[in-house]
């Protein structure tokens, strides 16, 4: 077996299988991850499942890192030279970020299933872009490039992590808002009162907001006077109910599924391939179902919102730095630091979009959902930058008269 074959094997099936089984285990564990209402038996079952899931994920990381290292050896360079390698590093960042920060520091293991879904989606798409390890064109081989692509991959990974929380926030927030709108029956005065509190912006800056939002969304911290168990169960059921429609005799979050499938379909046009489109649409349908089923077990909307914000705020300066080093690299390699070519333009666009999100978060008057949509759109811009511009648009352009054999 050559090193190239070994690296491929480590990636697929080893890493993919480990991540997939870990993801399923996490989702299974999630059902037990909230306050253990009916006793220790369930809670410890959840704990055991989560332990297995965590171990599987770490094994997956191990295999993934091994794959990257072997690949780097096979091609004798930094393993960030093409889109496949790039996607791979992005997914690794997502997984490690999830394990270390989300599960380790923030103690939110219930989100890990979705973190792994995000990573697996990235990896699945990367398989469409698979390329055998190969050396780099000399123009790509500089220190600036090394810094540039590493930081871009890192921040793109963190933005992807944020996008997972962002999507979950919108889902959970929709459910909570609808339940609040229906309130009055069955959720006790505490919830109703809080639900009717004026919509407050998800601003970390004011503790008054924080308090009111936490009351609004987190039933498990509510001071429910009577029978908290049934209240909680009812709330959880309600959260799920409000998202679903009964179409074709099946209860399913049809609208959400159709919406995400449509977006997925648009995205799949990049490949112009019926098979790819169909798999993406099916995936979106499945994901909508998984998200729907998981809605009651997710953290409260305000928690998810704050998580999204903090993750994006963490990635943003790294992206900024990466764009700057990209310009430095262009100046060194091509003698022009910025040429508004599609790649540069869309990197800038991504930056502007996320700046818009950060501004929206800082402004009063922009409510949490709008900002959250802006966050998701920003991620869409990032995906556009990455996939569409790389695969579709750069064909139009060449770097300032460079001939193809020079290979820019």
């Amino acid at each position: 077996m050559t090193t190239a074959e070994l690296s491929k094997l480590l990636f697929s099936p080893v890493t993919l299988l480990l991540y997939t089984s870990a993801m399923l285990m996490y989702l299974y564990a999630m059902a037990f991850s909230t306050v253990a209402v009916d006793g220790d038996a369930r809670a410890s079952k959840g704990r055991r499942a989560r332990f297995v899931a965590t171990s599987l994920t770490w094994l997956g990381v191990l295999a993934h890192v091994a794959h990257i290292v072997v690949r780097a050896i096979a091609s004798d360079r930094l393993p960030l030279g093409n889109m496949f390698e790039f996607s791979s590093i992005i997914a690794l960042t997502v997984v490690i970020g999830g394990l270390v920060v989300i599960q380790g520091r923030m103690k939110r293991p219930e989100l890990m299933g979705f973190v792994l879904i995000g990573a697996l989606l990235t990896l699945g798409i990367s398989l469409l872009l698979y390329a055998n390890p190969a050396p780099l064109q000399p123009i790509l081989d500089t220190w600036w490039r090394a810094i540039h692509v590493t930081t871009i991959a890192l921040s793109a990974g963190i933005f992807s992590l944020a996008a997972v929380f962002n999507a979950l926030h919108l889902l959970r927030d929709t459910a909570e808002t609808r339940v609040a709108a229906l309130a009055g029956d069955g959720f006790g005065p505490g919830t109703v009162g809080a639900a009717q509190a004026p919509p407050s912006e998800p601003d970390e800056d004011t503790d008054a907001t924080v308090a009111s939002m936490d009351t609004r969304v987190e039933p498990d911290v509510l001071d429910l006077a009577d029978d908290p168990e049934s209240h909680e169960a009812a709330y959880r059921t309600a959260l799920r109910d409000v998202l679903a429609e009964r179409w074709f005799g099946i209860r399913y979050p049809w609208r959400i599924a159709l919406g995400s499938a449509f977006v997925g379909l648009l995205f799949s046009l990049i490949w112009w391939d019926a098979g790819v489109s169909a798999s993406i649409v099916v995936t979106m349908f499945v994901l909508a179902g998984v998200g729907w089923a998981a809605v009651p077990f997710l953290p409260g909307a305000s928690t998810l919102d704050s998580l999204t914000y903090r993750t994006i705020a963490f990635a943003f300066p790294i992206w900024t730095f990466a764009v700057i080093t990209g310009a430095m690299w262009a100046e060194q390699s091509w003698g022009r630091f910025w040429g508004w070519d599609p790649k540069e333009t869309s990197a800038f666009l991504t930056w502007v979009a996320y700046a818009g999100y950060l501004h929206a978060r800082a402004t009063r008057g922009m409510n949490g959902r709008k900002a959250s949509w802006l966050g998701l759109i920003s991620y869409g811009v990032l995906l556009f930058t990455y996939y569409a511009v790389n695969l579709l648009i750069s064909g139009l352009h060449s770097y300032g008269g460079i001939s193809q054999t020079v290979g820019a």
Partner: protein
Amino acid sequence: ASGSGGAGDARTWGVGFGGTYLRGVTQLESFDPPRMNPEPVRGPRPVTVGGLVSRAVRDMWRRLRTMRTALWLLGVVGLESILATVVPQRMNVPSTVASWEAGTAGPGVAVSQVLEFIGAYRVYTSPLFVATLLLLFTSLTACLLPRFRAWWRISRHSVPPLSRHLGDQEHVARFASPLGVEEARATARGVLTDHRYRVRDGALAPDGSTQVAAEKGLIVREGGSLMFHVSFYVLLVSIILGQLTTFEGFASVVEGQAFTDTSIGYGVYEPGRWFGPEDHAGFTIRMDDFTVDWVRDPLAPGAGTPTLFESDVTLTLPDGTQTAERIENNHPLVVDGFKIHLLGWGYAPLVRIRDGSTVVYEDFVTTVFDETETAFTGVVKAPGADPDLGVEVFLVPYAPEGEDGGPVFTGAPWADAPVLAYQSWTGDLRLSATQSVSDLDTEGMTEGSFGFLRPGQIFPLGGTMTMEFVELRQWTNLQVSRRPQVPWLLLGSTLLLLGLLPALYAYRRRVWVGVAPDEDGRTLVTVAGRAFQRPQAFEDEFLELDQALRAALDGPPADLPSQTAQGARR
């Protein structure tokens, strides 16, 4: 009991100047400028045209100042950039734009005319883009000026307010210290100062209690945000001045030939508006030898990928000094602020065409790699022949002899067995018609002969014409650029990043340490705190601060996590 019960006089408890002022400061949580005074109340005023106009202007100014406007403008800039991503830009890919306009590519001539009309082919120089940018910066300015004023005042005068109800703060910790009240306060003050807090002592209350109030983070956070936004001006000014003073030129140089840095020395010449002929450095560069290499093993990973570009050149300065230099990828030659990059190359066969014994054409043909032909292609135009002669030239660098003696074409780019395939045309070259030098418009021309030439071979083209492939060299496309703005852009970028970090991560928090004597002669210490942003980060910091205070005040170590209010839980 809260740590510092009892009422002090109004001034020390922050109702006087400090209090009013600090209420203003509190507003900075939203980065609104603090309002020192309430808006003056005005009576109705007579309606005049001037009044209306000035009101409209004031209204617009007010609206421009809001961040919502800035957001929208930012969005418009984004949309315009999208347009520029999707529609080819003349400054990047003029040939693509040309083919869109001609209708040979893109959405067709009609759409192309609309695109031209709305300036979509030159988004970044279009009036719309410039206007958006102008508005955006006006908005930015309108919003930054009051923030600057406020920040300046705060950083000079701000003192943290005292707290009447320490026990009501988000984070509260209590312990007893053997130190005396005054000593305890002084020590606590020292600890807070060591942690880089700005501190303020409270007065001694009648019951013998007192406190020290401390704050940190606001100046850094807001200052960072200001620096971040100011960096946009630095960037903008650098970009504009840079556009005016920059220089870029391209020269195609065949091995053994040279070009000189003058206003007529370049094939493509793109100076900034303020860059005059006298700004050239006047050096001469002769391309002595250009080397390119690839992964040659067809079975190796990345077969055919270039691995090396090296140009050995002779640099002659205007004063006559000559030096041998080397240009490599990512290692441009720098002469007097001008950077020389290799941006492209190709093979340059020397072709000589004779009519009888008269040479009608003799030149290096600059061929460019053509992916569809897997060959380097170029054209020869010899209007000196009669009738006009045009030759399409295909250079295949590696075409070894096959068994039948003919060349076997391979896609390999190295010139180990070069062969020149040609197709000649006779007729009218129509050189007066606008056409590019690298295209041969064969319409109306008669197809001539087709053949292969090895270096040194001569072939008849028909009639008395012969074509000779004299020798094979390489040509290089050199870019010469001067970018005086780069250091300024770096400065702007550095400011941007240095400002961004505190603007996002620094957080404003207040800590109070109240000290009060108890009946046993000990001192009861109450540590209270509250964060305005990043409550999670403050949670840890507060615990740490509590520990430090306990250590300094000889209090018992904290064994339980201090009581923290629920609001901190996110």
